[in-house]
Each structure stands twice: as C-alpha cells, then as structure tokens.
C-alpha cells in the first residue's frame, strides 16, 4: 500500500550510507569497528598521581603515560617521584596519568587516537608501528640513551617450590611430561621475548642448524597446554590455577609473583636468555599539540637518573646506571644475554621471520607437523 514511501526510504538509506561511508573510512573509525566485541577484554585502567595543587607561576600540566601490563607498580612510584622533582625544579605541578594493557593493544590505542604524551612499551616494534602512522619520527630510538631503554629485563623460569621436575635450562623444557606456560607470541610482547630466548638457546646448541632449532621449538610448544593472550594472564594460569611445571616470565614478573605469593615458587636462571629492552619515547605529534614537550622529555630523562634507576630496580627492572646496578648486584644475577639487534637483526627482521603469518611460530601449529 505504501509502495512509494518504501521506495523513498530505501533511496534515503542508500544515499546516507554512501555519503557516510565515504567520510567514515578514516583510520580510527575502522579500527574500532574491527575490534568490536573485544573492548570488554581491554584491561587498560587509568590511575592518577596528583601533586599538591598550590598555585605557582606556571599552570599545572598533565601527562599521559601509555604503558604495558607489568610496569603498573613501577610507574606508580616513579610518577610520584617525578612530580616531586619537577615541582622542586620548576615550581610547576604535574599530574601523570598512566594507562596499562597488553603492549600491542596499547600501541593500537595510541594509533587509534589515545593522546599519549609518552609511550613506555614492551617492544620497539610496537613503538615503530606508532611511528609508521607519523605520530613520532622513525628515528625515535636514538632520542634517548641506550636505545631509549632506561631499564632492561630478561626472561627467566618460575618453577614450583623445590623444583619437582628438576628444571635447570631450556633443554629441560622439551622433555616429555614437562608442562610449560607461556603467553601467545602473536598477542603478547613478553611472549615474543620468551620465544626468541628459546630460539637463541637452541640455535647455539645446534650450531645454527635451523631445521634442528625449529624442531626444538616445536617440541617446546608441544609441552604448552594453555596459551594465554598476555603476560599477566599466563602468570595467573601458573600461580592461581596451578597449571604447568614452569612459567616463562619476565624477570620482574617472576620477582613480583615471588613477593606476592611467598615461598610457593622459585626462580631458575637458564644458561642463556635474552636482554629485553622495553623502550620509551615521546609522542611528538601529541606533545607539540598539547605543548608538553619540555616536561615529557624531562619525564623520560628522569628515568635515567640515580633516583629513577633506583625505583626501577626496586620494582625488579634491571638498572642501566652502573652505580645503581652495583647496589643491586645481588638481586640481579649476571647472565649470558642475547640481544635483539645483534642476534636477531632488530625487531623488523625478527617479526618477519618468526611472528608474521607463515613465520616460524605459525609453522609449529601447521597441521600434520
């Protein structure tokens, strides 16, 4: 009966959808639509550190530090210290907000429009991705000392009290009957460090015979019963759910678990591991827009000072400043450490070879293998 009306509304629908898709194809928009249904999982939370609000010449300023999961405790203490230092030096109040989540997810948020003044992520690769979108210069890693990595970490084994399976080195992880817990390298930055550390060990053992190395990794992942999507999830699986005999973990996460859960776990240092360098960077586009460059740069530089380094060490990150490293040398065992640049040709190379589609990690789960 209302044929004419129907046709008219259909025409309206067509015009609207055409017009709006044309302008709706910008990056941030699509980003959200593709990730729909996943937002509940995003565990990023925002906390604040506020300095006293006494009025001074300079107006108070606010920074957003977008970081990854295991640095939560570190930055709570560091932000407080920096706010006090900055107030003392310039008389300006600074409030630092922190956001935490999986490193890759955090990087996606910044690309999607989260106004981060500084990013402190788990991998250089995740910051490279932000640089690719033009938010900061491609040479960001040269802006601060030591590859822009003020503190480092490494990958260690966490085992149950008494080490019932007698795990001492990577070679023990491929034995039948040993269950290994690690997050999925496809979704977790920390897991990529795990994977490369294991790869590096096997490569040394096998004198660079790649087929043998891949075989070792395949055997290792045959022993993985659960692949969590992030580092904290894997820690929970191991410590709370009681699954697995050994957890491949960031050294700082292993120390934290030990601190929180007492004497139920032991840390085992393998003969070889990897030097994990979580880098930091100022997001140029955002600080220039907000006029926060000066304080953002000072914030990251402060990570390299005696006080910043001490806070990092107290939160179980390896300090890079010699004087602080000496003070904590009992806490951090000296290890034979591979580096991403020397042993794997940098992140872009490692990513392509191991974690991209069809890379060595995918080959592990190829049917029939």
């Amino acid at each position, binding site marked *: *009966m*209302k044929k004419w*009306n129907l046709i*008219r*509304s259909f025409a*309206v*629908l067509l015009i*609207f*959808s055409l017009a*709006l*898709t044309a302008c*709706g*194809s910008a990056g941030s*928009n*699509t*980003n*959200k*639509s*593709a*990730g*729909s*249904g*996943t937002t*509940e*999982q995003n*565990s990023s939370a925002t906390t604040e550190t506020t300095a006293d609000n006494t009025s001074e010449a300079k107006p108070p300023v606010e920074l957003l530090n977008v970081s990854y999961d295991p640095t939560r405790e570190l930055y709570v203490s560091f932000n407080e210290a920096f706010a006090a230092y900055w107030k003392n030096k310039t008389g300006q109040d600074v409030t630092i907000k922190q956001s935490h989540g*999986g490193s*890759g*997810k955090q990087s*996606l948020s910044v*690309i999607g429009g989260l106004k981060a003044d500084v990013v402190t992520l788990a991998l250089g690769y995740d910051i490279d*991705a932000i640089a*690719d979108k033009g938010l900061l210069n491609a040479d960001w890693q040269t802006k601060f000392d030591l590859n822009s990595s003020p503190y480092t970490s490494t990958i260690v084994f966490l085992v149950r009290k008494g080490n019932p399976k007698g795990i001492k080195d990577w070679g023990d992880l491929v034995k039948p009957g040993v269950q290994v817990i690690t997050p*999925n390298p*496809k*979704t977790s930055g920390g897991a990529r460090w795990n994977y490369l550390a294991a790869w590096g060990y096997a490569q040394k053992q096998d004198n660079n015979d790649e087929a043998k190395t891949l075989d070792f990794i395949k055997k290792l992942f045959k022993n*993985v*019963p*659960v*692949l*969590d*999507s992030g580092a904290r*999830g894997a820690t929970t699986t191991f410590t*709370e*759910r*009681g*699954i697995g005999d050994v957890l491949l973990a960031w050294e700082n996460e292993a120390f934290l678990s030990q601190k929180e859960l007492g004497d139920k776990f032991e840390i085992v240092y393998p003969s070889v591991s990897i030097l994990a360098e979580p880098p930091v960077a100022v997001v140029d586009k955002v600080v220039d827009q907000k006029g926060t460059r000066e304080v953002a740069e000072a914030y990251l530089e402060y990570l390299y000072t005696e006080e910043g380094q001490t806070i990092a060490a107290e939160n179980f990150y390896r300090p890079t400043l010699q004087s602080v490293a000496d003070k904590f040398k009992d806490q951090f065992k000296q290890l034979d450490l591979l580096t991403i640049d020397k042993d794997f040709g940098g992140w872009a190379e490692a*990513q392509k070879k191991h*974690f*991209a*589609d069809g890379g060595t990690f*995918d080959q*592990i*789960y*190829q*049917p029939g293998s």
Partner: protein
Amino acid sequence: MKGSRAKSVLPGFGLSMGITVFYLCVMVLIPLSCVFLKTAELSWSEFWQTVTNPRVVASFRISFVTSFIAAFINLFFGLIIAWVLVRYRFPGKKIVDALVDLPFALPTAVAGVALTTIYAPNGWIGKLMEPLGFKIAFTPLGITIALMFIGLPFIIRTVQPVLQDMEQETEEAAVMLGAYRWRTFRKVVLPELVPALLTGFALAFARGVGEYGSVVFISGNMPMKTEIAPLLIMSQLEQFEYGKATAIALVMLVISFLMLLVINMVQWRVNRRVAAS
C-alpha cells in the same frame, strides 16, 4: 488507515522511517561497511589465503560449533526455567527472575575469570571432574560452558512473555478432551512456543559466535584446538594487519548473516503454520 495515522503517537511514517533508517545507518550499516572497506585493501589472493589458512578455518569451526551446541543446550534449559518462572509461585521467585539477567549485565571478562576459576583443574568443579577424566577449562567444553552462560538469558527472556500470554484454558480444554500431559505439551503448547524459541536460539547463537571476553580466559587459546575466531582477529590487529583482521571478521559476518537468515526463514514457516492452524 487514515484513522490509525491520526492516532499515532510518533510523527508520520515518513519522518519515523527517516529516523529509523538514519539510526540504523549510523549504528549498524556504516560500522559494518567499514569492515568491507578495510578488507578491500587486500587483493583477492591475499584475502583467500587469510581466510582459508588452516588455523583460521579451525577457529571458525570452533566458534560456530561451540556456539551452536551452547545455544542448543540452552534451548532446553531456558524453556524449563522460563516455564518454572511463569507457571509456578515459590518463595524467592523475584530473585531467581532477576538472576536470569545477570549474564547480560556482567562484564564478559568477569564471567570468563569466574568460570575459569571454577572449572580449572584446581577449581571447585574442575577438581571433582578431573579424577573422572573430564577436563573442562582449556578445552572446547569450557568454551561451550562460557557460551551457555552468556546465551541463557536470550532464550528465557524471549520465551517468557509468550508463555505468560498463553491461555491456560486451551491446555485445560485439551486435557478435558482426553489428551495426556505430554500430548498436550507437544500438540498445544510447543507449537506456540516454537517461534519464540527459535528467536532466542538465534540470538544466543549469534552472541556466542562473536563472544570474546569470557572465552579467552577459559579456552586456553591453543591453535587448531581451542582458538576462537575473534582471538585470531585480535592477534592480526596486534600485528597491525588491519586488512587481514577485517577479512576474518568479514567471513564471520557473512556466515552469521546466512545462518540468521536460515533461522528466520524457518521461523516464518512456523509462524505461518501456527497462524493457519
């Protein structure tokens, strides 16, 4: 027609329809069309390679099969719960009624963590099942349970109002005419409920296919075994492969749409039969 138009609360058909169309465009059509647009970045062969990758295919199978089973199981239990809630009076009924909505309101990640805690090998239920040889968490069974949790309210809430409106006199008449209880249920009650059950099934099924938050915790995420399609989409995004991520999303969208279409067609059939009888 004229009379009804004069009485209508909303402004005339033209304007209401305009608003409807506009809202649907902004909320549904445009976001979804972006999936198509992003996917168009890929060439045909890239697209085909992405979606026929054995891991991706396995994840589709897991997502759709577990959702289907979960919705199917809920069909029975949802009906029983709805029946109890409508037909009986008992103390605490209001509370039970409110509990039904809890899976709607709860953040799915909370559900996932809670279910994993219970069904993990050292959890309350997991501990009891382990000696019997049943592993629940980190298997497809765990995924199914998470999806049953998520989907249950859909079926109860679609069946409940229909049951409420049903006239008990019809059933009484059937009994008076000599029909046994089962026969009454099958011939009188069930046919009227089928459309609502199908709707509930379709909603629960569709919800399950897209579910991410509650499943990632309980599934264990093992490639080829318990990896769900939404997780693969996430993992593509983490590698900044927007095109490949949306390609997987696109295939899910198309399959879901086709399945909903089939369910809807069955429903039309049933509706017509019910109306005719």
